[in-house]
């Protein structure tokens, strides 16, 4: 069992640190003009971060003991295709969840 003081220290510093990360540019730069080349790079932040966040869960899902898993892979593909096709997060989520449960139901 972890001591409560260690838990509190982690909660406190993770909270403060995360807030400062979020505050960083938005808080300190404010309405000052950012260089054009910098803004051009910022346009890619979303697509540069999120696919990278997903990929380890796809390739080595913890729940399956780290092996590639057909339902998860198919769900990811469905979510991605519907998200692009419909340009909508709602369709993407619905497609992903439906395919995940459907394939798990069929395969097990």
């Amino acid at each position, binding site marked *: *069992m*972890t001591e*409560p003081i260690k*838990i*509190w220290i*982690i*909660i406190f510093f*993770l*909270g403060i*640190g*995360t*807030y400062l*990360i*979020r*505050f*960083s*540019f*938005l*808080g300190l*730069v*404010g309405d000052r003009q950012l260089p054009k*080349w910098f*803004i*051009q*790079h*910022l*346009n*890619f*932040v*979303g*697509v*540069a*971060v*999120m*696919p*990278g*966040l*997903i*990929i*380890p*869960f*796809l390739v080595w*899902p*913890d*729940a399956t003991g780290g092996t590639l898993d057909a339902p*998860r892979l198919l*769900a990811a593909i469905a*979510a*991605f295709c519907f*998200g692009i096709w419909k*340009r909508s*997060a*709602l369709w*993407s*989520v*619905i497609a*992903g*969840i439906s395919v*995940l449960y459907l394939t*798990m139901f069929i395969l097990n």
Partner: protein
Amino acid sequence: MKFSPTSKKSAFWLGYRDNIPFWLIVAPFGLLFGVVATEAGFSIFQTMIMTAFVVAGSSQFTALTLLQDDAPTFIILATSLAVNLRMAMYSAALVPHLGRAPLGIRALFAYFLVDQSYATSINIYTNNPKMTLSQKCRYFMGSFACLLPVWLISTLVGALLGTKIPPEYALDFAMPICFIALSAPMMRSLPHFIAALVSMIGTLVFISAPYSSGLIIAAFLAMIAGVQTENWQKRRLKND
């Protein structure tokens, strides 16, 4: 999504509405966090303080996992904060849109900055260049107002249940689906696809980089790849 310049109230509710799909994601994710936190020895009070103060699920899970592995405090903090470093990029990406808001509002918005509020807002701002600052601010507030209560309540329910949710429910996959749903509508052009590809390959290549810094390295490479592809396309257009 098209945005018509209507009343201020509707910008808030549009942001709220656009984030409702993520209830399907945030709720199981919060539930799972509540369960895992109490299993790791957190009191319900500690679980709720953490979830309301940090509001960043993936880093909270990282911290829990490392706590259970009995990692030193410094390592736990460094690794969990590295998971959140992506938010500095979100913060920068919002500057051209929200930077003109007063400092107090920006300080509040920093607390509101989560993956979903960033992604849905940047999408609507990009597709509607005529949105006013006030509309942009209200949309951003609406998006967070939609998410926070669900996140808090689902965490509380998970902490109160406290029992293991059977793996058949595959709640582990809520987060990946969330990020796919957030990034798929951003795939507007070839440069965006290239950036996404580099991001995925880069993360796998740098997977064992210290303090989970691989994602940040990959993200930088992906942004450069996106911009270079865009510049290459522009040059080719000029030459034609």
